[in-house]
Structures are given as C-alpha cells and as structure tokens.
C-alpha cells in the first residue's frame, strides 16, 4: 500500500547553494572549485549500502552460501563511477553473506546482476542459475536521487551569469533589494506570491511571504515584474493586477485589479540608476504581451505594434527603442520613424548600461525554436547604426529563458530559466564584463 499523502499547494522552495557567490572573481573561483566538488557530491547523494545488503541477502536465500560465478552489468543511467562503487559494494555484501567468487567451471551457481532502472527508481535484478534448473530472479528497487546538473560556463568573459535563486514553481522575476558585495536580501515573484529572503547564517532564510490576490485565472505564459521603489519596498506588476508594498511597518502587499502601465525603464534608486526618461507600456491583462500603447510615448508616437519586450539605446539627441513585436519582427522606433527588421533574436530583449564598449548594450535571447529541449542562449549587441553587432559570445543557459528584465540599477539583468534537466526554475543575474 502506498503511503497516504496530504499534499500542499506550495511545494518546498529550495535555495540554490551556488547563489552566494560574492563577486565575479569569486564566481570563477567557485566554478573551478565546483568542477572538483560536483563528482563527490554526486557520489554522496546515493547511499547504496542498504540495497546492496538487501540484494545480497535475497541472492543467498536462493543459492545458499558458497562458490558463485558473478557478473554485474550496468543497464541504467548510473555513471561509471557509481557503477564501480556499487559493483564493489555488491561484492563485499555477497562476501558478507558467505559467497565466494570463483570461475565459471568451479561455481555451484552463476549469478548475473543487472543494474537497471525504471522511471521511478533503480531496479537491481539478479538472475540465479543452479545446474539445469530454470533461473530464479530476485530484485530490489532503489529510489532514484534527484538529478543534478553540472554548471557549464562558456569560455568568453563578456557575459556572466550568477545564480540567484532556484525553486520548483515558475519564477516570474527576482529583485535584489539589498546587497553587500553579493545580494543579501531578495524578493522572488511567482504566480501566487512574493517571497522575501534574507541571507543569514550562511544560507537564505525566508523572511516574509505575501500572497497575490487575483480574481481571474492568470493567462498562460504568465509574466510579471518586481520593481524596487524609493519610498516603499517594491511594486509588483502582473497581467491586470498591480500590487504595492505598504510604506513602513508592518510590511504588507496591497493588490488591485488595474490595467495601469508597467514601467519599461526601471526607476529604482541606487547609484547606477538610469537617467533616461521613464516609459510605461500597457500589458494585455489576458495575454503575454504588451498592447503597444505607450505612455508618455516615444516623442509623439504613443502606439507601436504589440510587443513582448523592449530595449532602449540612448543616442546623442534621441532615444532609440527596440520592440520585439508579436509579429516576429523587431521594431526600431525613434519618435520619427518606425523601422521593421527581421533580426535573429528571440522574444526577450532588454538593455543594460555598462562601462564597456559603447556604454549601452542590448541583451537578446536566441531565436532557437527548440530552446526548450536544447537550452537557450543570450548575447550582447550594440547598434553602431541601425544594424545590431554582436559584442559578446553567446552565453548558454540550461533551458529556455522565460523572463528577462533589466534590474533596478540598470547595469545588470535578471534572466529566469526553466532548467530542462531538473525542471526547476532558476533566476540568474546577467552582467556584461569588460576587456575580456
């Protein structure tokens, strides 16, 4: 009988242990360190001793103690290292129950062990043959450890990603509220809540959690933004709903149904805040795109095509806006003209202000239609004129990029990815690194 379960609506959150990398230099050191640590972590997550003993007991209950000819074959996804560990463990366990290993000619029984698996667990099967009698099959199942993915870091140093947060539920956005070399206070937005976490005693600890009230079902491909504010903690933008944290204590989140515009340019405080005109855009309350209505607009132009995301590039005398439109084109709008281009980008783009190159770069996702299976990538571009020029190598992500927003300071972006291996959602801070 299976164990009775009472599920909870909100699965447990799990903080990514890699999220406390202090600086980019520390990140590199951490990556190097991880390359040594990961194999040992993988070996540690599975304790094979109990199933080894269990299978050995089952085998000896059929064959009795004595001389056997043993073969072990790995028919599962177990790594070579785990396979070796398990083979050694099985041999030790069999010796422990009175088995001796001999050649085929000397054996009273042959035991063929197969390390197999099904979707739920590893299945270790032993076929025991004695004389001309039919083989007897015994087996044990071993719960499968959660898979871990190895971080792959591309070689070029132009774009860097730093893991901020990982959880099972889809992440819509992450905002860094405080940092001291590395983030120490973050807010994580998902479909039903905003959760605040503080770095304390060497780990992320949940500080507060605010539910998001909404009357209508959310649209598919739900999108949302967290915007830290100057006079209160933060604002939350979701399709048809805007929430604002209370000013002062106790901290609370007040949500209302509204189609007020979302800020395209972050206006949060901080030394590096962007000094360009604010721009708002109306988001379709039952869809996954902006309607194209802008406020105050690009000069006199207050309507553009429906778009998924936008980036901006300050020029000498004007601001060039790039809109990733729902028609698959990129629209370049400067207040005078609206040029349409087919650029090999994905649907998500944003801008960052840096001290590198021309000072402003556009971060754009890959146009890879199969990113769900193959993983996504992102690249930095500049626009010397009206054509994009790639200024960084592509940086890979372990799944499709689901969200890309410029952070409040304007010099970094938050990218949210659904990891294709683990199925979990991971938020990264993406930074452009100069002179590499």
């Amino acid at each position, binding site marked *: *009988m*299976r164990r*009775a*379960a*009472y*599920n*909870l*609506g909100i699965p447990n959150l799990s903080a990514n242990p890699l999220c406390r990398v202090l600086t980019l230099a520390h990140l590199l050191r951490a990556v190097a360190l991880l390359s040594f640590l990961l194999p040992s972590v993988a070996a540690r997550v599975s304790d094979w001793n109990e199933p080894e003993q269990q299978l050995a007991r089952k085998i000896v209950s059929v064959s009795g103690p004595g001389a056997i000819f043993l073969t072990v*074959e*790995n*028919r*599962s*996804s177990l790594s070579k290292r785990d396979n070796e560990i398990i083979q050694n463990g099985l041999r030790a366990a069999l010796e422990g129950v009175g088995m001796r290993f001999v050649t085929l000619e000397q054996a009273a029984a042959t035991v063929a062990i*197969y390390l*197999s*698996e*099904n*979707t*739920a667990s*590893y*299945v270790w*099967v032993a*076929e025991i043959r004695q004389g001309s009698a039919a083989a007897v*099959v*015994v*087996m*044990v*199942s071993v719960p499968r450890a959660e898979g871990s993915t190895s971080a792959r870091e591309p070689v070029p140093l132009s774009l860097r990603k730093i893991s901020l947060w990982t959880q099972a539920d889809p992440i819509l956005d992450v905002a860094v509220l405080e940092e001291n070399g590395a983030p120490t206070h973050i807010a994580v937005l998902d479909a039903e809540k905003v959760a605040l976490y503080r770095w304390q005693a060497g780990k992320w600890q949940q500080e507060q959690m605010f539910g998001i009230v909404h009357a209508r*079902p*959310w*649209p*598919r491909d*739900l999108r949302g933004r967290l915007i830290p504010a100057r006079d209160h903690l933060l604002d939350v933008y979701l399709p048809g709903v805007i929430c604002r944290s209370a000013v002062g204590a106790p901290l609370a989140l007040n949500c209302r149904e509204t189609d007020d515009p979302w800020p395209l340019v972050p206006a949060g405080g901080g030394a590096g805040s962007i000094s360009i005109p604010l721009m708002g855009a109306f988001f379709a309350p*039952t*869809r*996954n*795109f902006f309607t194209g209505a802008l406020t105050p607009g690009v000069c006199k132009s207050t309507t553009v095509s429906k778009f*998924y995301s936008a980036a901006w590039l300050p020029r000498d005398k004007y601001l060039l806006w790039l809109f*990733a439109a*729902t*028609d*698959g*084109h990129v629209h370049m709008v400067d207040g005078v003209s609206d040029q349409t281009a*087919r*650029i*090999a*980008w*994905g*649907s*998500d*783009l944003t801008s960052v202000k840096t001290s590198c190159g021309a000072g402003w770069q556009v971060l754009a*996702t890959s*146009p*890879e*239609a*199969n*990113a769900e*299976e193959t993983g996504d990538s992102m690249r930095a571009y500049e626009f010397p004129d009206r054509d994009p020029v790639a200024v960084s190598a592509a940086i890979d992500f372990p799944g*499709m990029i689901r969200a890309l927003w410029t952070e409040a300071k304007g010099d970094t972006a938050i990218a949210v990815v659904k990891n294709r291996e683990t*199925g979990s959602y991971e938020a990264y801070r993406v930074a452009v690194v100069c002179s590499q």
Partner: protein
Amino acid sequence: MRPIVWRWFVVSSMMVAGLAAGAETRPQYGGVLPVALRAAPASLDPADVSQNDSQDSAQADSFARRSLAGLMFDTLLSADDNGRIQPSLATAWQAVPGSQRWQFRVRRGVKFHDGAPLTAETAAASLRAANPSWNVVADADSVVIESSDANLLAELALPRNAIVKRTTDNKPSGTGPFRVVDWQPGKRLSLAAWEDYWRGRPFIDAIEIELGKSFRDQMSALELGKADLVEVAPEQARRVSQDGRRLASSSPVELLALLFTRDVASADEKLLREALALSVERGSIRNVLLQGVGEPTGGILPNWMSGYGFVFPVDADLPRARQEREQVRGRPTWILGYDGSDPLARLLAERIALNAKDAGLLLQPAATPTAELRLVRIPLASPDPWIALAGVASLAGLPTAKSHDGVEDLYALEVGMLATQRVIPLFHLPVSYASATRLESWTLRPDGSFSLADAWLASDRQ
C-alpha cells in the same frame, strides 16, 4: 554495456526545417490548428469504453481518445513527467486513517464549459458514472472515495476518470482547455479555446480535428498544409524523419502481442502455445516490417516502466519450438485474427504465420476480430506499471492484484500472467506524430497522448 536512459517520453527526432528568423520564441496567441487522426470515436465521453473505434476493442482506449479527452476535460489528479501525482481539479488529498477512504478537496473557481461551477457533487457524480464499483460521495467541498484499489491516485489521473458533467442531451461538458463547438461523431470535432480555463486560456484559438483518416491521408494532409499535427504509423516513422519532417516519438507505450481468448485447455495445447511463442523471429520482423522501430519483448511491460523487462527472452528458438510441437499428435489450425483496417497488422500476421509454419504449426491469418487467437495492439493504460499491467490483464480476461508492495510483486504478477499463456508479447511500440514547423510547444504525454494546452502557432515561420 548499453546504458538505458528512458525518460517518460523521448523526442526521437526533431527535424526543424530552420531557425526562426525573428523574435518568435515567446508563445503567440491566436490561430486555428488543423489536426488529423485515425480514430473515429462515436462519443466524446471519456468514460464510454463501449464504443469501437476500429475492429480491435483495445483501441477503445486509443491514444487519440486520450488526446481528445485531455483537450476537453480535466482529471482530479494528474501525473507529471516523472510519474508523480500532482494536483489538478483536486487541490489536496488525504487518506482517512484506518480506512480505505480518501478525501479530495475540489478546486474552487473552476467552471465547466457551460458556465456552471465545478462542485464536489458534480465531480462525485462523474466518478460514480465512470466507476460503478466505487463508493463516491460529496462532502462539503470534498469528494470522498472509498476504494481498496492501491492505485487509486494513479487511476484518478487517467483520462477515463476525467470530470465530466453529463447532461440529458448526451453532450458531455468539461473543464478542460478547449470547449466543443461542433461535433460530428466519427468525422469531425471543432474546438475553441475556453476563455475561463482555470489554468489560463490556451494560446490557440481553435482546433479543427478530422477523424477517421488513414495514416496515408494524414501524411498527405500534412504535406499539403491541411493538417499541422498528424499520427505516423510506426513503420513509417524512420522515413518521415529522414524526409526532414518534425517527428516526435514517445517511449514504447503500446504492446503488440498475440492474445488467446481462452485458457489453455490441455497439456498438448500448452506445448503448442509454447512452440508458437518460441517460433516468432522478433528481431527480423523489427528490422524488416517495423523498419527498425519498436523493441522486441518477451514481457508485457516495457523495460522503462518495469526495470526488469530484459529478463524475458525474446530470441526465437526454432529447434526447441519444433521439439515442443513434435510432442503433440495432430496438427491443429489456428485462425490468427487481425485488425483489417491496419495495413501493418496483415503483414505482421502473415509473417508470424510463416514463422509458425517453420515450427510445424498452422496459422491462418484472417481480418476478423472474433478469432480464438488474435494479433492485438494494446495501448498501455498508464505509465504506472501496476495500472498498465492491470489493463492488459483486464483485456486478456486475467485476474490482477488488488494490492502490492514493490517491484518483486510486480514481477511475480507479470510472470503469473505470462504463465497462463493467454498473452504472447511481441513488441513494444512508440507512438509517433509529425507536425508542421509552425506548430510550437505541443507536448507528448507519458501515456502517448498529445497535449495542445500550451501549443501555439508561429505566424511567419519560414
């Protein structure tokens, strides 16, 4: 050593014609999706297993019917890609200690396609209709089920247990992502996005499904741009992939087997059935008739589901088959029935008859569903091995286990079923679909059906 890494489903070949040339990776709303299917169901009610989509009764639970059910209906629980049970129309559940009662809390704010709210009463009525042997009652905002079925949670995730509001005019109403606009039984189904879907309105506006189309007609429709999603016959999958089409194949979720309709009646018959099982050259049938698709099997469950499937021998042993055959006097003739609407079935039946003849057995292939010995394709009911095995047992008229503890019990049950010689497993086949390049983000479920809730149509894919 050949490591086997089976996931719930494997996209075996995604031959993408080309990358999108623009900003199109985020889902787009809108569009009409044309689909063609071979099944021709007479009813949309997922609990109605009385109908026959083809000559083979196993097809009453065809992959197409599962797919259709998933478009229109939801279940109380669902199984994720790893087989773990997840909330769906039930938000929480618990077993009542010391009894066989389970309590499921019904999700609030869900609407049927006719606008009526989902209540515990309607959910309970739906489950009672689908499972007359269950004791199901509504208790405030919960459904209470009394059942000794150890697989109850996985059972509730099956399409046949979808929550349906049955009306007197025989038009079942669901809560799923699409609502029925037009239904011509066995011919055509028109669906529209359900604006109030509790998981969010689907991206696609409408789906037009042509039913009863042969594999050849389906492929023609895809090539002519008249269908964006079609089924592909197993033996055609490799060619379709080589032609550069987008092909997605599931894990092997269909059992191709010889099925006897009655128990072994004598020792002689036992020997003859053994001889038949030993005579079939699965390897060469796979290479030639199945064009390399599918896995030869001697077991009922595929290895990815059980983990031990490889222990059942699959190689033909003609000398032993002849030896078994020669112990029996006389030479009985078996009629080997097959589904006449399945062109592959005829070829397979003829080839099996040839193999049997080499062992001294007489098999006469015939396109009939009533033969004592039949070549059948059995869609495995669920990725849950216990439910899958129970489904085959039910079809073969064999008893199944009421409770179970572990993989050894599963193995013992399967060995017991094989020992009856009612079933001779031959192959496990994947389910394959081909899709147009503009169709994005449709998914294959672990049970071989497709889901279009997250699918979208790229507007200008080149």
